[in-house]
Every structure is written in structure tokens, then in C-alpha cells.
């Protein structure tokens, strides 16, 4: 009884801590004047919405490129993460410990330091100021998280169902697809989401690797926050969070459909 109350209290607290600032941002985004100490804005306008949709930033294009970039990072990070997780969890090979440790190295180096350092490598490779360069840099930031998520899932799922599929005549690829993949799916989705959100919210690394030529929503958003136009910054935040949530909902929908279909219903 007591534990239940504590749980509900904490849940309410967490919701409050998320919903109040979110609501505030929503209000700010359409506020024209909000002088102190008014609890609500004095007047509202759709100036920011107009600016967002038809202004200099060209939202649709920006959203399109940001989401494509982040999805690419999410998917590639998950592929690398899954291969690494399977290698370390299901196989034995010399240097396995080193691979496991190496996978977490990017977490130890601060992003800014890393972005400065890798700039030189990117220039040398001819990848500076290109989308490929940005994807690469985002990937390095995302992969440790993808690996962590997928290592746990891979360990939990194991290879027993794959073995069973193989003795029943499935080739290794089909055994993976029919045996392990369905059980891995929630983990894979978490990993893609993680990679997506990490890439979606990168600012400094995008700026350094993309040289300002690769435009993302986060890249446009940050200067607005710094410029002091709170209403405009808020509407960009709404667009940022809203688009990310929309993508997550789509993921969930796809996963649901796929799992229903694989059940043959």
C-alpha cells in the first residue's frame, strides 16, 4: 500500500517534470508578449509558426534531411552493434575482450574533443563537409549505446532457437531471420531509436564534420536558442521534439504490423 503510494507519487513527479516544461515551451512558441509576473502570456500570435513553415529555414527540407541522416545513423549503428554483440556474445575468438572494451572507448572521450580531433582525419579522407562524414562521426557517438543495448538482448536471446532452426534445415541466414530476429526485434528497435535520437540531437559534431553545409534541425535550432528570441526557439523545440516523437510512433507502428503479420494473422 505504502509502496504503491510512493510509486504513484514518483510517477506524478516525473510526469510533472516532463509535462510542465513541455507545456511551457508550447505556450512560449505561440506567445507574442509574456511579461513578468503574468502566469499566462498577454497576447498570442502565429508569427513563429509562419516563420517555421515559410521562413528562411525551409522546415520540410530540414526535417527530411535530419530524419534521413538520423535514421541512417540509427540503422547503421544497429547493424554494427548487432554484429559486434553477436560476435562477443555467441562466439569465442582471441582479442574478444579487447573488442568489448574498444566498443566503449568513444564514451570515454568528450564529444567536442573527439569532433576536433576527427576533423583532421575527415579532411584527409576527403569526407569533411560531406553527409558521409557527418554520418561517420554520428555513428561513432551512437555505436557504444547501440552495442550496449544489443549485447544485453543478444545475451538474453542466445543462439538456441537459431540452432534449432538450423537442425531443422534452415541456412544460417534463415535461421537467424526466423529463429533469433523476432525475439531480438524490441532490442533492435530500441537501438535504432537510440541511434536516431543521438544523431538527431548532435550539434557540435555536425557543425564540425559538416562544416555548416550539412544542415540538420539541431544545427538550426541552437542559434535560435542563443539569439534570445524565445518564441522562435520554442517553436523549433516543438518541431524538434514533435518530429522525433512522430518517428518513434512510426517505428512502433511498423514493428506492430510486422509482428502481427509474421504471426500469420
Amino acid at each position, binding site marked *: 500500500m505504502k509502496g504503491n503510494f510512493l510509486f504513484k507519487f514518483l510517477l506524478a513527479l516525473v510526469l510533472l517534470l516532463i509535462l510542465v516544461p513541455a507545456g511551457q515551451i508550447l505556450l512560449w512558441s505561440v506567445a507574442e508578449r509574456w511579461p513578468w509576473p503574468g502566469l499566462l502570456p498577454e497576447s498570442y500570435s502565429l508569427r513563429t509558426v509562419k516563420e517555421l513553415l515559410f521562413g528562411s529555414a525551409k522546415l520540410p527540407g530540414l526535417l527530411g534531411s535530419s530524419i534521413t541522416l538520423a535514421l541512417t545513423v540509427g540503422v547503421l549503428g544497429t547493424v554494427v552493434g548487432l554484429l559486434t554483440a553477436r560476435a562477443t556474445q555467441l562466439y569465442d575468438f582471441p582479442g574478444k575482450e579487447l573488442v568489448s572494451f574498444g566498443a566503449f572507448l568513444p564514451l570515454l572521450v568528450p564529444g567536442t574533443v573527439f569532433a576536433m580531433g576527427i576533423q583532421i582525419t575527415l579532411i584527409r579522407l576527403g569526407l569533411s563537409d560531406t553527409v558521409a562524414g557527418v554520418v561517420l562521426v554520428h555513428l561513432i557517438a551512437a555505436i557504444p549505446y547501440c552495442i550496449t543495448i544489443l549485447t544485453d538482448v543478444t545475451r538474453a536471446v542466445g543462439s538456441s532457437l537459431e540452432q534449432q532452426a*538450423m*537442425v*531443422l*534445415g534452415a*541456412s*544460417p541466414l534463415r535461421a537467424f531471420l*526466423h529463429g533469433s530476429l523476432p525475439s531480438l526485434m524490441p532490442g533492435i528497435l530500441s537501438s535504432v531509436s537510440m541511434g536516431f535520437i543521438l544523431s538527431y540531437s548532435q550539434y557540435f559534431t555536425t557543425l564540425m564534420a559538416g562544416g555548416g553545409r550539412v544542415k540538420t534541425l539541431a544545427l538550426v535550432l541552437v542559434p535560435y536558442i542563443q539569439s534570445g528570441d524565445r518564441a522562435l526557439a520554442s517553436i523549433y523545440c516543438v518541431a524538434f521534439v514533435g518530429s522525433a516523437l512522430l518517428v518513434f510512433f512510426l517505428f512502433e507502428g511498423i514493428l506492430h504490423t510486422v509482428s502481427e503479420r*509474421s*504471426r*500469420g494473422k
Partner: protein
Amino acid sequence: MKLEIENLKVSYDADVVLPGLSLTVQEGEFLSLLGPSGCGKSTLLKAIAGILPPSGGCIRLGGVDITWQSVHKRGTVVVFQDVRLFPHMTVLDNVAFPLKMQGVDKKSRRLAAAAYLDRVQMGGFSHRLPGELSGGQQQRVALARALAAKPRLLLLDEPFSALDENLREDMRTLVTQLHREYAMTTILVTHDREEALSMSGRVAMMFGGRIHQVDTPQRVYHQPATRQTADYFGDCIYLPGRVEAGVFRSGSLALEVPVSDGDFDLLLRPDQLEIGTGPCSFRVEGCSFRGRDTLVTFRDEQGNLWKKPFPGTPAWAPGQTLPGFIRVSCPVLFPRLSQEKD
């Protein structure tokens, strides 16, 4: 199909599990691999199925060397102890899975799967998910799925040990029936003595990665080749004695045996004890009623304990001494152990 294993070696890292094992299973035979846990019987099964790579030796199935063939091309189907049904597929799709892998079209494979499900009395469960079935039902589905794969060799890895006693009996009967019906070469891995003796045509006794004896259940039980085999069936009593000029003597006992002279132990089992008349005397140590019978413990003149079940409730009290004798029809002798060690 006939399976021939020659000098098979398997090791995990530095740990040698099978130091070099040879075994032949005839076409259509039902062979049990019986041994304590950790003796390498499951490892042998996995090596046959190709799940574990051997470090040496040769496996031939139907005369063809399959030692290095990929798992999915061998046609060696395993039913594991932990069932391993695909949790996201219906029962029907699980059974149809091997047929799908063989490229059978959807309609025919569903029909075939339904027939196999009927055969294991699971016809009414086609559209359930494995998670909605009991342990026994899941194992039946796993069996149907293995049969649907039309295995060249069926490998059963302790498939009944997770089931309770009554279900286990049902499953044993079902597997025996199915084996008779499909005449499929089958290897059953088990540590359960009764299971191995009652189900198989031959039993291979395995200890420490080596096969000690491969023979009919009767001969494995009555004529064990090694002490370990004898001990595995429990309650052995060894009567020390000496063989001179082809006669084994121990106390008042004298038996003609076809072995050369030396110190030997005679293997005796409690079921050879006959109470009633005879030259020996046995003291009743205790009686424990078990429902269908009463287990009576006797102590003989040498101090050995004999535990034998008697029907009903015998009217013997602990401390009572009864006459009796030990029936020896075909004596089994083992060279004296202590002599080898000293």
C-alpha cells in the same frame, strides 16, 4: 540411416570432452546413450548434429562423410530438452517450419503439418502460440516438428527430463510408437536408466567421454562390461573371492567361470537374493512400506546390505534372522580393484 562414428574427438578450449569415440548405429535402430551428467553424451549428440565442431575423427551417415557438412544440410534433427519452439509462430507454423525450409508450398506444408500434429494428438491446438501450451504439449509439438523434417537421423537430447513422471511415461510410449511407425534411426540421450532400458534396442553406456559397452538392455544390465556400468544401475554388491583352475571361490560359494586365475569380485544385485531356504542367513535391518511394495533391507554375514522389494507387507521384524541364498545364473566378475591400486 546407418551412422558410423570413428575416433571422434571434441574439446572445449583445453577441456577434452570426447578423447576419441567410436560408435555405429544401424539403420532404423533405436539406440540410447546412457550415462551420468557431464559424461559427454550431449556433446556427442551436438557433434553428430554439427553444432559442435570436432577436433578430429570422422562421422559418416548413410556411408557419406558428414564430419564437416553444415548443420542444415545434414538432416540430423535434434529435439532438445528445453523444447525450443519458435515463440512467435503458431503451433502449426512451428511444425510446418522444416517443410518451409525445404521449399514445400504453403498449402501442402500446412496440410502435412496438421497431419503430424494429429499424430501426436495435438490437432486441436494448431492456432495456439507455444506459450499457451503446457510443458508436455510443447514437447509433443517439438516431436511433431522434428518428424516433419523427415530426419535421416533423429536425435533426442533428454527430451522428457523436464516433464513430470506421468507425462514422461506417455511421451516414452508415444516415441516408441512413432519409432516403430516411421522406422527412423534414433539416438536418445538420457541419464534415466529405466528410460534407456525400456525404450531402446541397444544401450551405449558412456562414462568420462568414453563408451564402455554397447549392447541390448538385457545384456547391459545383466552382463555389464565394467564396474561403472554395473554401478550405474545401482545397489551393486561385490563379493571378493579368488579364481583357481576356472573356479571362483568365496566362503561357501563355488562357481565355474571362464576366466584365468587371480583375485576377483563377483557382481551381485539384490534381485538375486532369495529368502526362505538356503545355507546363508540374512538379518532384517528395516522395512519401509512404499504403497505397491515394501522395501526390506537385509544384512548378510559379511556385512553387505541388500535392499529388495517384496509385494504387500511381509511379516518380518527388524533384528529377525532369515535363511536364504543367492541365485547366480551367469556370474559377472571384475578384477579386484584394491589389487590394482596397491
